[in-house]
């Protein structure tokens, strides 16, 4: 079952990447990258069970943190760029 899950995860990641490439808006791309990131976390978790190495779960945990912070960071950038033509402005 674990192998099937890995294959399904890879397929989903490929589909998310397709959406990221197709766009059409920047927000679709960010959404797709976010989905890709969460699926990576799951993939790492499943892989560490297939290898029988629970230590790898720490990597999944850290990846979840990085994914969240990067999505929020990228969004802040595009939010302010689109609302006032590129100038950074405080709230």
């Amino acid at each position, binding site marked *: 079952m674990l192998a099937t899950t890995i294959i*399904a995860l890879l397929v989903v990641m490929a589909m998310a990447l397709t959406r990221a490439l197709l766009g059409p*808006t920047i927000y679709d791309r960010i959404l797709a990258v976010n989905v890709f990131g969460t699926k990576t976390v799951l993939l790492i978790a499943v892989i560490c069970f297939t290898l029988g190495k629970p230590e790898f779960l720490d990597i999944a*945990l850290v990846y979840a943190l990085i994914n969240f912070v990067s999505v929020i960071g990228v969004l802040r950038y595009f*939010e302010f760029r689109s609302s006032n033509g590129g100038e950074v402005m405080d709230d």
Partner: protein
Amino acid sequence: MIEQIVLLLSGCALALGCFFMLSGAVGLLRFPDFYTRMHAAGVTDTLATFLILGGLMLLAGWSLALFKLGLILLFLFFTGPVASHALARAAQHSEWKLSGSGSRGGKRGPAEPVSAPAEVAEADALNTDRV
């Protein structure tokens, strides 16, 4: 005996998780505009994540791995809505704003921009140029 039942349960959870995840991804590809795609992504972020991590938790048994999986699950559940909300809010600041109130009919096609067509064309150029 109990081990086999747990194994079976975790297999079922993983299989169901895969199904929901694939459905969400299909929705991500097929739905017509950004906001609806966000709903499809929500499926993969909530129930699919829950089922797959739950299946792994059953496999893990009582160990540190169980706790770490729980932590990952908790973290994904807390950050998921925050990320989608930030995404929706950022889109709200953009040319693809939802109009004030009321609802659009059941149309296919991208969300109707509220700004003038010229600006939209410009925005499209912006999107494709800089990515």
